[in-house]
């Protein structure tokens, strides 16, 4: 039963992939439509935070909360690995 299910899944996936591939060949690449948020970050980034690197001014200045939560996710992962491979007490 497992082998037939795999064959059906393969055919469906290849069909969906060719449809998406054909639909995405001729999109306008390099001209985004609306740049309001990006223009605000580019114009006001140096004045609000004082850093030349605009990417650093986003993830350490305007959105520092997300960076703090991501650090906590990394800490939980390290704690999980050390707990899993502890060995005999």
């Amino acid at each position, binding site marked *: 039963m497992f082998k037939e299910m795999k064959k059906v899944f393969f055919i469906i996936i290849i069909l969906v992939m060719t449809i998406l591939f054909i639909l995405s060949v001729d999109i306008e690449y390099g001209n985004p439509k609306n740049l309001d948020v990006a223009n605000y970050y580019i114009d006001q980034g140096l004045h609000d935070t004082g850093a*030349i*690197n605009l990417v650093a001014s986003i993830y350490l200045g305007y959105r520092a909360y997300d960076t703090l939560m991501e650090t906590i996710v990394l*800490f939980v992962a390290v704690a999980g690995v*050390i707990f899993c491979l502890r060995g005999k007490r």
Partner: protein
Amino acid sequence: MRSSKIIKTIAQKLFPFIVLFGFYLISHGHLSPGGGFQGGVVLGTAIILLALSHSIEQTEKKFKSRWLNMLEKLGILTLIFLGFLGIFLGYSFLGNFLPLGKPGQIASGGLMLPFNIAIGIKVAAGISAIFYALIKYRGEI
């Protein structure tokens, strides 16, 4: 497995340059591409290079595993403490209370340099702690 003398010597000679490059990436995080996460991974890679070329017992004598665990917890506690310091001085949580300074120098950007240093220390200790835990496992259930 035995380790050869060529790899041991080259790894010992390359170690200070990798640590210097890691500190450069952390401290110039707001002036050029880089930052806390990238510099922390480079610092962790330096310790992993030493642990792979020499045996794990020799590396653990110099970089003890209890020190690495404590450094990781200290890094994240510093981050939360800097956030609460913003509340005590009247701004919002994780707000900027240091002076901004001239753009283009290292001492600019307010609270960005202490953030980068805390994140860099935490990521370096975390990657090394994961590697130690995976190598020292001896098959107990």
